[in-house]
């Protein structure tokens, strides 16, 4: 029995869309996938003509598909964006080496300029050096905190207007649930925003906010896009934990659960009069922080003073 595409009614269907349950053929799948992202970009007025936009590129599936689609839409709809790839080199031998090779191939394949900034450049420490100091127990804390700021810091150096990241609908649903489970009300509204303004008024946005991971991977598969997948060598079991598994379980029962969770996060309102922590800035580097020093500066201070445990206290998240 041949299942026909519900859009063109001509070709054989090859994908069942998780968001809608529609069965679509290859060409119609490409078309709806790309057009939905274009609509997300234009509905939210993410860019202006002439913007210098850095695509955060890790060599992984999401950022590889993002680079491909951004390049394509920029040409198809004449966004007039000055696009380039921005990669962070954490300095992990064997891990980033391979993924940076992938990004370098993407640079050729998509004909986009590539800038790489390293942890050593930004912080004076590579992850390999940090692991030597702190061992394998807390290293993910360092890597995560440093990575969060690295894109912004790199973007400032490169004088960028806008950073786009490959966060997809599954990632955002995961963050919404985690913020709810942790009771982190302050972060909840921010995590569903498609575009946030960070350091030095650089905008940061997520064109894949409503794009399912399944479709990103299917798109990469059918387009034969070249991406890299591995687990970080310093955290061999770093699957994204229980919340991720829970979301995938939900999706397998009812695929719309992912979009529903995002909508719940968006609709969440805080009662008037509830006091939220005031967002300040770090005294040392100027990055957003609710304490005097931001987490990155705390961790750096510890490293530089030979007290790497500084900043990894009990309350540290």
């Amino acid at each position: 029995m041949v299942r026909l595409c519900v859009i063109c009614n001509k070709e054989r269907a090859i994908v069942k869309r998780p968001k809608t349950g529609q069965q679509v053929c290859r060409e119609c799948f490409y078309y709806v996938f790309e057009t939905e992202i274009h609509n997300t970009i234009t509905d939210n007025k993410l860019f202006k003509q002439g913007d210098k936009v850095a695509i955060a590129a890790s060599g992984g599936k999401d950022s590889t598909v993002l680079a491909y689609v951004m390049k394509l839409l920029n040409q198809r709809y004449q966004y007039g964006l000055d696009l380039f790839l921005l990669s962070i080199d954490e300095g992990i031998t064997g891990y980033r080496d391979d993924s940076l090779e992938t990004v370098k191939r993407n640079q050729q394949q998509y004909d986009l300029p590539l800038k790489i900034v390293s942890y050593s450049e930004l912080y004076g420490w590579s992850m390999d050096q940090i692991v030597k100091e702190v061992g394998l127990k807390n290293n993910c804390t360092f890597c995560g905190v440093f990575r969060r700021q690295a894109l912004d810091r790199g973007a400032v150096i490169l004088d960028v207007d806008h950073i786009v990241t490959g966060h997809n609908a599954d990632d955002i649903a995961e963050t919404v649930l985690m913020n709810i489970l942790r009771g982190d009300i302050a972060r909840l509204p921010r995590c569903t925003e498609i575009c946030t303004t960070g350091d030095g008024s650089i905008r940061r946005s997520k064109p894949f906010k409503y794009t399912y991971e399944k479709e990103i991977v299917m798109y990469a598969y059918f387009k034969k896009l070249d991406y890299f997948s591995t687990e970080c060598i310093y955290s061999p079991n770093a699957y994204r934990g229980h919340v991720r598994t829970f979301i995938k379980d939900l999706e397998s029962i009812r695929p719309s659960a992912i979009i529903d969770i995002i909508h719940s996060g968006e609709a969440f309102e805080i009662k008037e009069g509830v006091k939220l922590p005031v967002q300040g800035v770090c005294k040392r580097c100027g990055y957003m922080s609710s304490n005097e020093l931001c987490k990155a500066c705390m961790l750096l201070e510890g490293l530089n003073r030979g007290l790497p445990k500084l900043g990894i206290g009990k309350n540290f998240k």
Partner: protein
Amino acid sequence: MSSLIKVNLTFSGGVELLFNNIKQKIIEIPSTINPPKPTTMKDLILWIKDNLLQERSELFVSGNTVRPGILVLINDTDWELEGELGYEIKDNDEIVFISTLHGG
């Protein structure tokens, strides 16, 4: 009578890490693993678990199916359009397993 059928397996997106980094493998399995019924995807997944999986089987199978987050394609079609576990394997089928769980 059970004969042997050839199946072309592909592991990617990080699933290959559970299979000694092997990305492609041609296997020969009985056309009826559970006689008298023809071999299905359900039989194949358990066969892979018992015969090929090197480590951490819970990262590949969950119950009698693949772990949620692993995509399956049968002859380049989403297995959700092909009857999933009930699909009857044919000679020279190409089955692809792709993890979506690895970093992006």
